[in-house]
Every structure is written in structure tokens, then in C-alpha cells.
């Protein structure tokens, strides 16, 4: 068969090429470019090689922020995933008013803008006028998120759980709804316990949505910025300064563009690595007890 030589086909991919270039490739390469330069001002740049990367990887404060960040993200996953599954299991099924009401209630926190969530909790936790803070004060618990590191850290964590557990619950609920009723009947006839139904039917059937839930929650919590910024501004001390906030301080506060760019790339690679690990682990563990 004769092949038709017609290079006009290349024109058809130009729109996609342009969009991807402007939205992803060029910004990314700009960052890569910054990361190997010392920048004093417009036009005053010097090539410094891997110096910034070395600086970033040996930065003590950054290490602290990274450890804080990892502990925080793991805590978020450890609380939100089981809690979300439990809520989904307890939700009413079918098409009743009860179901709609539950769904709307669950969706509410998801509809609130991030900075508003921060503000809500800022006021909620205040000892003088906040419901939570005042209640703690009334029962004699010493709680103050503005000068106690642990209190601040826990408040940020609880705030995230409050804000995002609904997402996990809704995803799991969708997964549960897709299980045909015959599975439950079969389990009933088999005399399977509630735990067995969960372990051998519901959990494997939710695997797909759980992968998505874990990845979404991990990536989001690993990049958390707005809520702690509004609530505590990263303090007290550095106790709630997570990676993205440290990065912002570096780039916009200290105008250390080169170092911030190197940091961004390392940050990106860390998120990528963790996501890959989670994905691999969940995908393999769900596919059974193969010997």
C-alpha cells in the first residue's frame, strides 16, 4: 500500500502543544533554570551549578519542616481514611430523604474555601470568644494554639480532619454503593460475620476508590498551606511551618529565588516518590493473598 506523505498533520497538534508548553513545560523549565542560578536582580544572574541543591539538602530548618510535614501527612491519612470508611459504612443506603440529607451535610465542609476554614477555626479555638477554646477553658484544660506548639499542631490536624474526612467518606460511599446486593445475600447465606463481610467483600470492592482517596489526601495534606497560614502563621516558633509555607517564605519573603526553585524541584520529587509508593503498595496489597 502506498503511504501518503502529508506533513500537514503536524499542524493539528499545535494547539495541544502550545497549551501544554505554556501551562506546564515552560513554567517547569523556568524553575529548573532558576535553580541553577544566583539571582540578584533582573539581568544579574550567575550560573552556580548544583550549589542550591546542596544548600537545600543540608538546610536544618528544611529538614525539620520535612519531618513535621511527613508526620502530619501520615497522621492525616491514619485518621481520615479509617474515619471516612466508618462514616461511609454507617451511612443510609437507597434513595431516601435521609440519604440526601446525609450527603448534603457531608458535602458542606468541602464547599468552604480554605482560608475561611482557617478563619473559622481561628475564632473557634480562641479562649475568650471561641466555642472550643472557651469550653476547654471552662473545664480547666490548658489549651492555647497561639503559644503552645502541640496545641497548634493538633488544631491544624483536627481542622484538616474536619475539612476533608467528608471527601474520603463520599468516595467510599460511592464504592460501597456499587456492590451488587447479591454479594451481601451470598455472605448472609454463608453465615459470614460483619467483619468478614467488610474484610472480604466491602474492602476489596472499595480498593479503587481508596487508592484515589489516599493519593488525594496525601498530596493535598503534603502541600497544605492556606489553613495553617491563616490559623497560626506557621507558629508558634516553627511548629506548624510546613514545607509549602517554608517555601513561600524563602521565595517571596527572603526573595531567595534560586534556592526556592531548587527546593521546589526537590519538593515535587518527594511528592512524586511518596505517591508512587502509596500507589504501588495499595495496588499490590489489594490484589490478594497470593503466595
Amino acid at each position, binding site marked *: 500500500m502506498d503511504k501518503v506523505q502529508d506533513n500537514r498533520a503536524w499542524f493539528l497538534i499545535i494547539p495541544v502543544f502550545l497549551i501544554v508548553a505554556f501551562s506546564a513545560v515552560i513554567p517547569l523549565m523556568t524553575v529548573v533554570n532558576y535553580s541553577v542560578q544566583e539571582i540578584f536582580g533582573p539581568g544579574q544572574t550567575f550560573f552556580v551549578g548544583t550549589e542550591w541543591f546542596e544548600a537545600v539538602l543540608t538546610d536544618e530548618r528544611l529538614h525539620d519542616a520535612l519531618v513535621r510535614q511527613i508526620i502530619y501527612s501520615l497522621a492525616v491519612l491514619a485518621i481520615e481514611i479509617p474515619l471516612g470508611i466508618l462514616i461511609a459504612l454507617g451511612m443510609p443506603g437507597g434513595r431516601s430523604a435521609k440519604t440526601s440529607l446525609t450527603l448534603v451535610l457531608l458535602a458542606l465542609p468541602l464547599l468552604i474555601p480554605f482560608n475561611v476554614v482557617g478563619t473559622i477555626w481561628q475564632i473557634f479555638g480562641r479562649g475568650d470568644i471561641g466555642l472550643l477554646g472557651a469550653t476547654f477553658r471552662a473545664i480547666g484544660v490548658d489549651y492555647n494554639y497561639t503559644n503552645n506548639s502541640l496545641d497548634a499542631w493538633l488544631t491544624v490536624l483536627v481542622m484538616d480532619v474536619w475539612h476533608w474526612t467528608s471527601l474520603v467518606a463520599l468516595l467510599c460511599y460511592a464504592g460501597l454503593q456499587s456492590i451488587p446486593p447479591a454479594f451481601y445475600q451470598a455472605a*448472609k*447465606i454463608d453465615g459470614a460475620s460483619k467483619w468478614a463481610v467488610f474484610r472480604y467483600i466491602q474492602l476489596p470492592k472499595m480498593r479503587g476508590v481508596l487508592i484515589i482517596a489516599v493519593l488525594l489526601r496525601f498530596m493535598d495534606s503534603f502541600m497544605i498551606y492556606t489553613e495553617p497560614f491563616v490559623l497560626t502563621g506557621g507558629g508558634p516558633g516553627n511548629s506548624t511551618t510546613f514545607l509549602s509555607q517554608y517555601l513561600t517564605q524563602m521565595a517571596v519573603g527572603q526573595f531567595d529565588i534560586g534556592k526556592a526553585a531548587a527546593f521546589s524541584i526537590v519538593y515535587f520529587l518527594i511528592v512524586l516518590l511518596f505517591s508512587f509508593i502509596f500507589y504501588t503498595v495499595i495496588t499490590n496489597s489489594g490484589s490478594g493473598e497470593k*503466595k
Partner: protein
Amino acid sequence: MTLTLEGVAKRVGAEQHLHPLSLELQAGSFNVLLGRTLAGKTTLMRLMAGLDKPTAGRVLENGKDVTGASVRHRDVAMVYQQFINYPAMTVYENIASPLRRQGKDKAEIDAQVRRTAAMLRIEPYLERLPAELSGGQQQRCAIARALVKGAGLLLLDEPLVNLDYKLREELRAELRDIFADGKTTVVYATTEPQEALVLGGNVTVLHEGQMLQTGATGDVFHTPASLACAQVFSDPPMNVMDAILTNDRVALSDGTSLPLSAHDRNLPAGPCRVGIRANHLTVLRRSERLVPIKGRVALSEISGSETFIHLRHGDTTLIAREEGVHSHPIGSDIQVYADPDRIFVFSTAGQLVAAPNWRRGALRNIA
């Protein structure tokens, strides 16, 4: 186990899903529930299993009333239309799961799993997950799981309906041997008359939530108690024509007269309805006693190696079956032949008046 249903009925809200019916299934018997979609087969099965509680009547297992008893305390196993297996367990673990729950020891479980898997020909796949099997193999795994449980009552709710034609034939033939152990009472729901005939045993015909007839499969097929029952138990549905019965002959509206020589004598004269299955309406005149019926081709469809001719005859459409693949132009005139020894006579209300006395007919042919 002997399963007895006494006036069992199921009503959901204002809808009567199942009208009161009584049925006795002997221990070790093979029973087919035959009926079209929404006939109440699944409803009846759920009542038998104890998944639902009947709104009226009693369910007895070996004479013991178990009407309100939960499915957990019943001795049942069930196979569904969908392929239901534990998704995260291997085929081996799936089959072993009912035995583990019964607390059998390891060696016995292993022996039973392997024996059952061999019987269902899924031995090579024991280490695989259900999702890695074909549909037919998944259903074999589900059947193995139900069989291995050793329950007194095994319910199969259209187990082959989601399989392709070839696999269905294959598994159907095997199922008959598998269930022939004689200990388990088997109930098998299907929409296909063909399947009921292949599987044999007893049949209970359901239609719109009502039990039409129950008995040995051959008896019900050859002497359907009513037109409705005959319709459910014929594929394609039985041809029906209005006729006048006089002196043991039926006269069709166009004057064609069929002698009822294989039927009982001295039938009551008057208007009646004549039923004849498609395979007894043929294009070839195999014998002189066949009576010609004229019609006009409305449609001719080929199914497998058979041709079904839909023909207009007066106000009714008849379906004739022809061996082999043939084409009949739409609108052309055609003559088909009815076997008068195979026709059924129903009253105008649809009750059976006379069926071909097939046992006597068979004897007469030999003599």
C-alpha cells in the same frame, strides 16, 4: 432435605409479588422453577432460602417450621445470576471458605476443595483470583463454593443466564451429573423451557406471581394444565388458533379440519382454542396424516441451524419451525403442515380440554 411450602405468599406494599402457593420438594429431588422474567422465581427462592419472610403461609424443613428463622440458621447454599465470589480470595480460598467456617481440619478441606474443583474443572485455576478467570470459570467457582458447603437445599437462580451460548450448553450438560448425588434438594430457576427439559426432574411453572402447574417435567410439558402454562413452557410460544370442536374434530376459522385421533374420545362440542408448538408446524409434509395450513410469510428468522417462519393465517400469526437454513421472501404464500396428533385443545377460558395422549400414542406406534 424435604422442603414444604404451605400457602406461602409475598406482598410488598400494595403489590402481590407472589400469590399463595403450596409446594413440596422431596429430599434429594431436582426441581426447576420455570417462568418468564418477573414471574416470581427469585421471590420464591428468597423465601425458600430464608432471605425474606413470607407475608403469609409457612415454610417447613423436614417437617420443622422454619418460617421466621434467619438464613444463618438454615441449611442452604445459593448460586446467583451474577458471579458472586470473594474478590480478594483465590479460587482455592473461595471454595474453602464455607468449610473453614464449619471448622473442618486442613487435610479434609484440601481434599474436598480439590475434589469439587476437579468436578467443575477449575483445578488448574485454584491459585488465581476470581477477576482473573473467564465468566464461565467464575460461575464454576461460585457453584463449587455452593456445592462444597454440603447444604441440604441448593438454590440456583438462573446461574447460566450471564454466560454465552456455548458455555451455557456445556455447563448445563455437566450440571445434571453434578447434582445427581441424590442427597441435596436442588431448586433451579430458569426462563428457558429448553433448559428445564434438558435438566429433567420436576418442574414448577410460575407466571405473574402465580403457580400454574407443578409435576414431573415430562408430564407438565406434554399435558400443560392451561394455555398460559403451555405458553411459558414453549419456545417460541405455542401457536394458538380459535376453532370449533365437533365430533372429535376441530375446525379452524378458514375451514381446515383436524382429526383428534390421538386424544381422548367424546370431547364436549363447542368453541375452543387450539394450541400447537412451532416444531409441530412444518414446511415438509413428512406424513400423509399432516394437515396443510395456508398462510403468508410475515417474517423468517434463522436461529442456529433452524429457520423460524412467522406467517399470517387469518387474524393470527403462527410460527413454524423448519430444519436447516432457508429463506422465505416476506409476503410470499406458504403452506405449512400441522400434525393433528400433536395439537392441544383448550377451552375458551384457557383450560386444557385434551392433550395428545402421548404415552398411548407411542405404544400404538410400536404396535
